């Protein structure tokens, strides 16, 4: 029950203010179509740089939770998921709005998100120390394979193509080698003094996630969107109905937890799998897709239940459970916190305050989510070109403010433009970012492993023997093989 010792830290005036601002801002950012949780967190990381580690992480954590829930507002009112996690919410949320039941749908969405979110954070609280104790026995070879596993899993699950995902992951690992080698002190690929410290993580995060989105927003035509008037609906009756849907809530929460614990899977998978399950287990599946509240309840409880468990592998093994968790890893690193087995020993206060704040954020999200649903209707009407302008200003200002360096802005814009170009060929940003973040960990541990192995049986024997090493190699091979096999199956079905 160590988490209870640090609960008081969340309730200081500054931390509570950050928590409320982060949650409300996250709800509004999530409601804006085109702003995914991953991009929202990436854009905010530079602004947390001058905060303390606790404050920065409270801000990022609350934005992560709230954007996932806020994305349902545009999913229900506009049929545009605010975030990929809300794809399943559209299926019954929008038909409910068409039946003039939009407020009811939003009530179900926030109440279910709250229930799923709280269950997910409780899993995070109780599972993390167990896994951390197990991970304390890891040596350099294990840490090397964990870094490779993180890149492989994100590469195979986040990208549409396993090979393209792997290529992107390797590109990130290569980019991470720019600058001084930590162990040998040799300068590599420094074509300009700007790169002597390597590629700044924040510049990379903001550039790779925000700039391609700006280009995409500008290249799409602005569509005229339908909007529905809010009907009167008593919150009490929504609460009563929501809590009576035990089956939908249980399926959503369990699916969310399982999907969250699998590294690399995202909120959209949790939402879609739980929607599919509740539909299959329903007495009348024909109601789904026509405005069935259980569809919204299962999808929303699943995508928020996924948030907590997706942080378990991140905080204990440095393997992110979702693309947004991968960006959060960057946020932890800029505050000098390296997640891993000893996180709860060396940075216990920061780690537990962060986790406790996520639990409190669920309550704030419920209260403000229900209250600002009406206000968010104005945010979702923001024209796309205005949205692109706002993102560009935030990206440039945020990147510059970290080191007062214009060079970082140039790196950010160059990486962003390059990312937009290669995204046209089907490459995705998450594996590159994770490669940049995990690259130094992989390389340092590889070099250390080599030094140890030179005194023993050689590097190959050192890296590929032992149960844990073999398990991680096995998971890497399995995820690549399964990803390639499913792709071929899909191609065959299409032909």
């Amino acid at each position, binding site marked *: 029950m160590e988490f209870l010792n640090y609960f008081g830290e969340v309730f200081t005036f500054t931390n509570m203010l950050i928590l409320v601002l982060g949650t409300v801002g996250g709800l509004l950012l999530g409601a804006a179509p085109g702003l995914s949780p991953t991009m929202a967190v990436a854009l905010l990381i530079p602004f947390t740089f001058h905060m303390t580690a606790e404050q920065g992480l409270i801000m990022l954590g609350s934005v992560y939770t709230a954007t996932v829930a806020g994305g349902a507002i545009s999913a229900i009112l506009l049929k545009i998921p605010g975030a990929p996690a809300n794809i399943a919410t559209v299926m019954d949320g929008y038909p409910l709005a068409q039946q003039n039941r939009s407020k009811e749908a939003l009530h179900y969405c926030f109440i279910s998100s709250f229930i799923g979110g709280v269950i997910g954070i409780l899993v995070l609280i109780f599972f993390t120390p167990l896994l951390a104790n197990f991970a304390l026995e890891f040596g350099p070879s294990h840490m090397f394979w964990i870094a490779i596993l993180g890149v492989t899993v994100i590469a195979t699950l986040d990208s549409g193509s396993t*090979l*393209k995902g*792997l*290529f992107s992951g*390797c*590109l990130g*690992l*290569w980019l991470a*080698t720019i600058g001084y*080698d930590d162990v*040998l002190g*040799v300068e*590599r*690929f420094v074509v300009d003094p700007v790169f002597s410290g390597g590629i700044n993580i924040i510049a990379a995060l903001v550039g790779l996630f925000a700039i391609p989105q700006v280009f995409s927003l500008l*290249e*799409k035509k602005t569509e005229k969107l339908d909007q529905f008037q809010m009907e009167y609906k008593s919150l009490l009756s929504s609460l009563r109905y929501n809590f009576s849907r035990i089956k939908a809530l249980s399926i959503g929460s369990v699916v969310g937890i399982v999907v969250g614990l699998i590294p690399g899977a995202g909120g959209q998978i949790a939402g879609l799998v739980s929607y599919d399950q509740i539909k299959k287990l329903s007495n009348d599946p024909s109601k789904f897709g026509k405005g069935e509240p259980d569809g919204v309840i299962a999808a929303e409880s699943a995508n928020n239940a996924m948030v907590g468990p997706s942080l378990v592998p991140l905080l204990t093994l440095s393997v992110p459970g979702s693309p947004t968790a991968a960006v959060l890893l960057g946020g932890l690193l800029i505050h000098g916190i390296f997640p891993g087995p000893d996180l709860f020993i060396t940075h216990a206060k920061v780690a537990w305050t962060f986790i406790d704040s996520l639990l409190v954020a669920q309550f704030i999200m419920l209260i403000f989510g229900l209250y600002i649903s009406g206000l968010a209707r104005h945010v979702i009407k923001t024209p796309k070109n205005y949205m692109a302008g706002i993102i560009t200003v935030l990206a440039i200002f945020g990147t510059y403010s970290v080191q007062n360096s214009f060079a970082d802005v140039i790196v950010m814009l160059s990486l962003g433009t390059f990312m937009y170009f*290669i995204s*046209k*060929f*089907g490459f995705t940003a998450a594996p590159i970012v994770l490669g940049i973040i995990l690259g130094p960990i*992989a*390389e340092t541990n*590889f*070099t250390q492993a080599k030094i140890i192995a030179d005194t023993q049986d050689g590097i190959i024997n050192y890296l590929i023997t032992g149960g844990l090493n073999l398990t991680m190699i096995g998971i890497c091979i399995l995820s690549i093989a399964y990803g*390639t096999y499913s*792709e*071929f199956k899909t*191609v*065959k079905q299409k*032909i």
Partner: protein
Amino acid sequence: MINFGNKSVIFVSLLIAGLLFYLSFYSGTSKEIQAYLFPRTVSTIMLIVTVFLFYQNLEINFLKEKERLLQFFH
């Protein structure tokens, strides 16, 4: 929205992997050669992945052609 075909994907992958492979083969003192071991390994893997991308493209084209011929003879 512009989206490119499979052949251009292989061309771009080959271009990026080839450039990084070339840059990674810097030869200097033994310490420098050791420091370049990791980027060298990564860029080699990128080239291998590009070869697999090429093979995957061939396989897909073969399946499409096979299906077209089967439909033609039936």
